């Protein structure tokens, strides 16, 4: 279980790194707004929130 958690964390780290770097980042960098909010900052914050949720899920479940 401990092994499995470590490898999942490393995988999540790689995913996070990918999401916050070129070229994935450039996907959001356009002159569009969503619900009146500019897309680029909105996307960054949403990705960030998703990473926090994924991390919390990985850390909190399983052996207490």
């Amino acid at each position: 279980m401990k092994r499995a958690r470590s490898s999942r964390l490393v995988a999540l780290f790689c995913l996070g790194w990918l999401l916050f770097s070129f070229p994935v980042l450039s996907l959001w960098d356009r002159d569009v707004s969503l619900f009146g909010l500019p897309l680029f900052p909105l996307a960054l914050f949403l990705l960030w929130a998703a990473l926090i949720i994924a991390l919390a899920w990985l850390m909190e479940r399983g052996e207490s």
Partner: protein
Amino acid sequence: MNLPIGLVVAISFAYLALLFGIAWYGDRRARQGRSIISSPWVYALSIAVYCTAWTYFGSVGRASVEGVWFLPIYLGPMLAMILAWVVVRKMIRIAKTYRITSVADFIASRYGKNPVIAGLVTLITVVGIVPYIALQLKAISAGFGLLTGPSDPTLTEASVTWWQDSTLYMALALAGFIILFGTRHLDMTERHEGMVAAIAFESIIKLVAFLAVGLFVTYGMFNGLGDLFGRALNDPAIAQLMRFDHGATPHLYSQWFALILLAMLSVLFLPRQFQVMVVENVDERHLKRAAWVFPLYLFLINLFVLPIAIAGLIHFGPGQANPDLFVLSLPLAEGARWLALFVFIGGLSAATGMVIVESIAVSTMICNDLVMPALLKTRRFRHRRGGDLTRLLKSIRRLAIVGLLLLGYLYFFLAGDAYALVSIGLISFAAVAQFAPAALAGMYWKGATSAGVLTGLAIGFGLWVWTLMLPSIAKSGWIATGFLDHGPFGLALLKPEQFLGLSGLDPLTHSLFWSLAGNLIAFVVVSFYTRPGAREASQALLFVDVFDRSGGSEPVFWQGQARVDDLVKLSERFLGPDAARRLFAEHAADLGASSIAALEADARLVQRVETRLAGAIGSASARVMVASAVDEEPLEIDDVMRILEEASQLRAYSQALEDKSRSLEQATEKLKRANEQLKSLDRLKDDFMSSVTHELRTPLTSIRALTEMMRDDPDMPTEQRQEFLGIMVAESERLSRLVGQVLDLARIEAGHAEWHNSDVDMQAVVTQAVGSISSRFEDKGAVLEVRAGSHFKPIRADADRLIQVLLNLLSNALKVIPANCGRVVVDVVEDDDGVTVEVADNGPGISLEEQAEVFDKFRQVGDRDQHREGTGLGLPISRQIIEHFGGRMWVESEPGHGATFGFYLPRKQKDDSRAETQRLGERQ
């Protein structure tokens, strides 16, 4: 005047006093053993000391100039915390096991407790961190100036000038406060529970204050986020801040990458982060929650950065007010003075939190890794035995704190105005990032050597000074800027900001690239070409394999002779008499020794003393002191290998011992179970014996009584004599039948019965059985009906035994059916796998409870009258026979509606099922 100076000063001091109260309470609870910081939430909040005045004021400043580019500083920690459970947990385990108290100690300890490395790391830290402290002073002073200055924010910059002198007093006041805070303990402990509690409290204040001003600006001054961003997007100058690429600068992605990497390394190796995350950690399991709560904190505190920056730009117009202070000037402009005061207190929280932890951490490093080694070099100090040095240690730390803050003030005074807050902070980050190769590789790569670390650190630090630090000083106007434009001595290739002709990167990315690349390459290459010494090799093993060595089997890399007396004296000098006594008492208790005097000064005790000393004066100094107090034999690389082998052998032995004891336990358990089984079998046998004897006695008693009567009465009439003899013959037959059945059952159960297996035609078996008993049915006036098809496939079994079973069932049925209207039906049904035979009667039936025991030995159900004929062994024997052939036997009945006994015989007997029945038979 916005707010009276006296009021702001008074509230600020009241706030500091509150902090002190919290710290005092935290320390008191810690001494009572009821820690208030032992919670993952408090731990996560204390890690949020990452958010300094730099975040609080500077993020908005950066966002108003560079838009979303304030974010990488917080995305880096987010990514780093994903790996916290892997990396930080290892750092915590190492630091706790070897009592490591600072990042300098961590690196030095890994590379053979090398004092030169410790000194170099400390030096880099001091040089790198001073601008960061200056930044906090600048933030507080600027905020204070704005809050108490003229209400027109455009005049802020000018109004700071007159306040500047007071910043010195503020720095000194903070120094005094920190001294009270962090170094007031008489016993030297490396952990500061009260401080952590206060820092966690500060983290709450700064978050609440920042969210408050964010909500006020967004919903009080504007109509929510939609309104704010709508107006921003209409203004092209502001709208471009929402985009990644807002200027025409090349290599933007590498800058973004560099910032994330920088922040990632900083959150691990900044002295204050190492202090709260590793040294002050109470329980490494807290990391599990803190790993996501801390990024969540960063997320929340950054939510309103862009809205506030945009609001400031819209409200004041671009370039009209200092964007670093928007959080204060916006509420002030709306007349919300109390909110502004609260926001200022939030900023004060952010700044003081950083300064407190940073200066405590760095002062420990200065004391342990710069001053102590220098003192230990002096002969007089080393050879002076005895005398309590804890006071000296504390004084050194206090002086270091004052010195740090004064240096910070100096930097602020010299260079403070030249840079925005964020740029100053990044200079510090880049210095601290130099520790990453040595520290990270040290935890995972045993081949890293101290020579590699020294070379890497020196080159990295040198490049940092040349490409980032010196230019920043030059740009402040304190040294000539000629070398920036033309290179030193006209060597254009060495220009600090276009080193080796590399151009196009911003100064930070440029410097980070050169310093980290130089550092890493030198570190790896030199490590490849140098051999670690014995002490280094042993420390490498202890660090890299720290998770394998929990428990009592870790190797002790020390050899020589020592005297307990010397060790006690040494400990008293640096730990104080009380702590020293506790240390030896603990060791005595662990070994089960009666007193300290009974202790033997073996390697384990020496190591324990050294580890404890390392907590007080750093591992490098502790090494020197222990070496001077005992008679050491030099450690060779062969010794390290030998000790390691002994330890692993010891571990293997203890592992084997554990395995053996576990298997013994299992064997004991098995034996116990077997014993239980034997006992119950024994009981069953006794029951069986008593049942058998009881059953034998009944006919015997009646035979004896009748014979006695015939003996005593010679004149008995012949008819009566005949009648008695008839009874005696019947009883004898019953006896011999009983004995025969007992023998039969015993043989089957023991597996000694003879089986004459052949291919049996079930129809023939039924016909034969029915034929031999049908006359008795006729005598009783009952009907016996057989419903069977023809042409059954043969079954491999013993025909005589099957007939025996059928006869048993039929005669049982015969006993229970009523006279003259009895009816018994034999059903034979064949399917693909086997044959089912059922014998149904119309007797009184059997109740559910009785059904359960009808197959037990000597258990006869129904009327007592019918018992005379039976032995109570017929059904058990029948079931044994059926089970021998791999089948099963059952009874179905409803009281009042007759009973049906049936059995099923499979055509193919599985070998294992047969063996199973065999074994079952033996057991019963």
